[in-house]
């Protein structure tokens, strides 16, 4: 029925819209035809032609009034009226071009800021996986007491892949790691991002390579046999000049020859938000990434490096998948009580994974979005205030329209159309503002040689958001003025050009706007101020060493695996390297670390049991983040040893095992006692004993926004690692050491690549200055923008209110009121409103502070200083906004005021 009906009605409606005149003419003609017949019938009945005509017209008379009704049955009035409204609004907005301009700019700022923050939220939270049918792709994670987002080991992956029924395939990938890439054996390798994936990766994700093919499952079965690689699209464009012939050619990765079998399509930049893999490599080739020679990726069930994703079968619910995996995790616990104790498993959707509790980025963007929405709200109240003021001056026009019979609803619609056009213009300009803001965010550089991309972009989703925001803001800022200006007493409305009907009802909306504006901008100002202070505080704590190191430390990474060194040769290389560079003139000290503090890599975790510590009954061990360093590390990095001793060259492989912990660690496990001399046992109560020989100062490890965390240092000699960062402390400019360092390395092995050579300042600037700096700048600019908008709006509203009372003020003064009385009257009103707004704004500010503390800073109590600075300044500004027009009003000559209309 439905479609057939449209078949008839749609052309009719279209005709009514597009050929309105024609339709009306036809109606007239039809009625004329009827009239003619009536007349003829009258004449036939013996009436004179004149009488017949009059009689016919009488009969038809009622019809003329029903014509409008008949037009209504076409049900397109809303649209034709809308078109009329647009024409009308265009004319009336053009007349008030200054107002239009101001409104558009205000809205553009609000909408643009919100769009930019939405692009961040979208990239970090909402944007779906770039694969077909992405809603079915879920994440499987291992969960332990300390980490609800842990990975699985290769063995566990195989078990899960083979023993679950709820999925159309389970895939695994490791993190993106640096690989040395060269086109042939002769050239020095350059660093690219390689990611190990399971053989069914492309097939399960339903990603079809642009050229060549994806992996066959047998290419991921025998460790080390099939050296095949799929090239990422970006890399293919950059490194292979978009040449399809690359498929089938041989390239070198980490010194091994790989055959290129395919090129990933442009639509698939990878499943990660920030990084795009250059090379997809089968898991079976894992040896080329092995960091720890004591570990066997293919056998060790606790070598958990793989993150798992799976495609839900049609008909399988998330709940079913969850219970299935839980059963499997329980089996693991039973079978491998030592390795899998207290270990569960979870199935998480993309959204759940991206909004994980321990990630800071999305929280920041959410807070940022709230601030941006606040700015938009202030912008809307501003515009509402302006439109309200304008509606006042149109009182007579609207009264005339009402008197002529325009429906109130129709008038509201007309006024709303006007604000819709305004906000659409604002939206267009907002898109531009948003574009600039996003470009600003994208320009932010991250110091790594891995291909990190900033995923914020102006795309269809953001544009759609802009559109939605425009419509919403049209209603926000247009509804109140439209409602108020059409609710009027016709008689008074017609009598004066600009009437403020007595009584408080009409002022109510305007007062509300003032209060809302003060409150919102106060909240925004508080929030941005708190955010700036929060970042500052978190920056200052635990980063003294970094400020001292930034001008003097040079870093270079070495990964002898890229040159096929074995474990012994690797350790020998590091020993020689540090020995030689320490002899270079200008080098004060040199040290090795896996990852310097504030570095870009993740720290490894270490499981241990503190000796003599009463373990809770339900757990086997504790874990802590750790770093492997050599004896020169603390001196070079400038992290003071507070108690005990530094590592010594005598802490060799054969010497008793030792460790240095940080103060936080010591405080947690031996509160009130000296940790030096205490022992921890690795893995469990029966594990290798390690003596704590020193306590180092607690610093920031991963981010400058970190909370205080426990940390353990283990000497390199007792825990051989293949990829290390060399740190050199120079007396002067650290880059001067670059050439001598190159000479040293060349003497050791001319082919050894030096990866990510940079000064520590780069790292510091990124993690302590630019990253948080961008955040602080963004928040600051939000706050300032909100404040400026609020001041402008507030001033306008208060001034407008006062101006409209000019006549009243004149009468008061004519009756003998002194200027000071008038001033008190006007100011008093403003102050009451500002006070109300302040109280509400304070309450909202405290709420926002709670929220930010719980999400980002964890600083606890209220930031009194912030309020002490923000509140009075806000009050001052609004007082000023009331004072200036009040003063002007008080100076008016009574005679002039009385004449004023």
């Amino acid at each position, binding site marked *: 029925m439905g479609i057939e009906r449209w078949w008839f009605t749609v052309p009719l409606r279209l005709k009514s819209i597009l050929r309105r005149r024609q339709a009306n003419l036809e109606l007239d003609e*039809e009625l004329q035809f009827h009239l003619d017949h009536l007349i003829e019938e009258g004449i036939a009945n013996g009436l004179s032609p004149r009488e017949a005509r009059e009689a016919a017209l009488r009969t038809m008379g009622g*019809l003329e009034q029903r014509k409008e*009704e008949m037009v209504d*049955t076409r049900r397109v009035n809303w649209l034709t009226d809308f078109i009329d409204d647009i024409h009308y609004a265009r004319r009336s907005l053009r007349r008030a071009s200054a107002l239009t301009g101001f409104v558009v700019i205000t809205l553009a700022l609000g909408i643009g800021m919100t769009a930019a923050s939405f692009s961040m939220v979208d990239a970090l939270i909402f944007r779906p996986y770039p694969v077909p049918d992405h809603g079915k792709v879920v994440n499987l994670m291992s969960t332990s007491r300390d980490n609800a987002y842990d990975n699985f080991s290769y063995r566990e992956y195989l078990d899960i892949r083979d023993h679950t029924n709820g999925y159309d395939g389970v895939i695994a990938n490791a993190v993106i790691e640096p690989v040395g890439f060269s086109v042939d054996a002769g050239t020095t390798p350059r660093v690219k991002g390689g990611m190990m994936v399971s053989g069914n990766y492309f097939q399960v994700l339903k990603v079809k390579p642009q050229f060549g093919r994806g992996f066959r499952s047998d290419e991921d079965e025998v460790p080390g046999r099939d050296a095949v690689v799929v090239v990422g699209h970006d890399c293919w464009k950059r490194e292979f000049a978009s040449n399809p012939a690359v498929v089938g050619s041989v390239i070198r990765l980490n010194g091994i020859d790989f055959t290129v079998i395919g090129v990933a399509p442009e639509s698939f930049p990878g499943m990660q938000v920030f990084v795009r893999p250059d090379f997809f490599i089968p898991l079976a080739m894992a040896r080329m990434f092995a960091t720890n020679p004591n570990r066997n990726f293919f056998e060790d069930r606790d070598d958990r490096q793989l993150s798992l994703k799976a495609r839900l079968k049609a008909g399988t619910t998330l709940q079913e998948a969850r219970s299935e995996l839980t059963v499997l995790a329980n089996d693991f616990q039973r079978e491998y009580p030592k390795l899998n104790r207290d270990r569960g498993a979870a199935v998480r959707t993309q959204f759940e994974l991206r909004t994980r509790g321990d990630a800071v980025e999305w929280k920041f963007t959410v807070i940022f979005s709230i601030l941006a929405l606040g700015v938009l709200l202030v912008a809307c109240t501003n515009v509402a205030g302006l439109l309200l003021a304008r509606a006042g001056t149109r009182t007579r026009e609207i009264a005339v329209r009402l008197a002529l019979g325009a429906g109130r609803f129709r008038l509201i619609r007309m006024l709303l159309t006007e604000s819709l056009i305004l906000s659409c213009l604002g939206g267009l300009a907002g898109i531009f503002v948003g574009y600039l803001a996003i470009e600003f965010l994208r320009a932010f550089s991250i110091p790594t040689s891995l291909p990190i991309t900033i995923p914020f972009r102006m795309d269809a989703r953001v544009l759609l958001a802009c559109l939605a925001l425009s419509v919403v803001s049209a209603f926000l800022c247009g509804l109140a003025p439209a409602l108020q200006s059409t609710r009027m007493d016709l008689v008074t409305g017609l009598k004066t050009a600009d009437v403020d009907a007595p009584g408080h009802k009409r002022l109510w909306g305007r007062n509300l706007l003032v209060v809302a504006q003060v409150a919102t901008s106060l909240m925004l100002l508080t929030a941005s101020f708190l955010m700036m202070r929060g970042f500052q505080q978190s920056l200052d704590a635990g980063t003294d060493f970094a400020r001292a190191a930034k001008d003097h430390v040079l870093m270079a990474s070495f990964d002898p695996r890229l040159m096929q060194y074995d474990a012994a040769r690797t350790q020998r290389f590091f020993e020689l390297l540090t020995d030689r560079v320490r002899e270079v003139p200008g080098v004060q000290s040199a040290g090795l670390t896996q990852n310097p503090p504030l570095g870009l890599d993740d720290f490894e975790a270490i499981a241990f049991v503190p000796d003599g510590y009463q373990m809770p009954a339900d757990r086997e061990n504790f874990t802590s983040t750790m770093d492997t360093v050599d004896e020169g590390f603390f001196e070079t990095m400038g992290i003071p040893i507070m108690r005990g001793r530094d590592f010594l060259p005598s802490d060799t492989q054969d010497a008793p095992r030792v460790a240095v912990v940080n103060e936080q660690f010591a405080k947690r496990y031996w509160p009130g006692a000296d940790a030096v001399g205490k022992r921890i046992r690795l893995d469990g109560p029966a594990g290798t004993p390690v003596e704590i020989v020193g306590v180092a100062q607690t610093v920031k490890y991963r981010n400058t926004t970190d909370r205080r965390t426990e940390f353990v240092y283990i000497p390199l000699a007792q825990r051989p690692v293949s990829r290390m960062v060399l740190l050199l402390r120079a007396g002067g400019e650290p880059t001067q050491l670059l050439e001598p360092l190159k000479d040293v390395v060349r003497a050791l092995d001319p082919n050894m690549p030096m990866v990510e050579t940079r000064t520590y300042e780069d790292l510091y600037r990124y993690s302590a200055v630019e990253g948080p700096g961008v955040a602080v700048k963004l928040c600051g600019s939000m706050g300032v923008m909100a404040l400026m908008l609020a001041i402008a709006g507030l001033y306008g509203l208060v001034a407008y209110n006062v101006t409209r009372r000019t006549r009243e003020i004149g009468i008061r003064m004519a009756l003998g009121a002194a200027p000071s009385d008038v001033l008190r009257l006007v100011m008093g009103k403003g102050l009451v409103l500002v006070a109300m707004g302040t109280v509400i704004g304070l309450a909202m500010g405290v709420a926002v502070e709670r929220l930010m503390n719980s999400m980002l800073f964890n600083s606890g109590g209220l930031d009194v200083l912030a309020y002490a600075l923000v509140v009075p300044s806000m009050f001052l500004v609004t007082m000023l906004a009331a004072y200036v027009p009040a003063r002007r009003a008080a100076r008016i000559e009574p005679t002039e005021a009385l004449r004023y209309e």
Partner: protein
Amino acid sequence: MSKPTDLVQGTLDLLLLKILALEPLHGWAISRRLQIISREVLRVSEGSLYPALHKLEQEGWITAEWKQTENNRRAKFYSLTRLGRKQLELEAANWHVLSSAITRVVRLSEA
């Protein structure tokens, strides 16, 4: 001429659909036909007829076409669509239900 009986609410559509089901007609002819068939009992004013026709057209139950009349004048002829035929069946059925119910009530003998 006796005062025409007011139509039962909502029956005008039914009548118009029924008349047009017989043959396509223009507005004037419809009003004449109504009067003749119902033996002058039912009379629809022009003020009701044309809005009703327009409504039916907008619903897609009837469709209009400009054609020459026998006197060689241009007139708008309405005819029933397939949808309209279904609607007619529906409304006719409704009418039977309603009218027989009313008849039953009216015929109740007083006890």
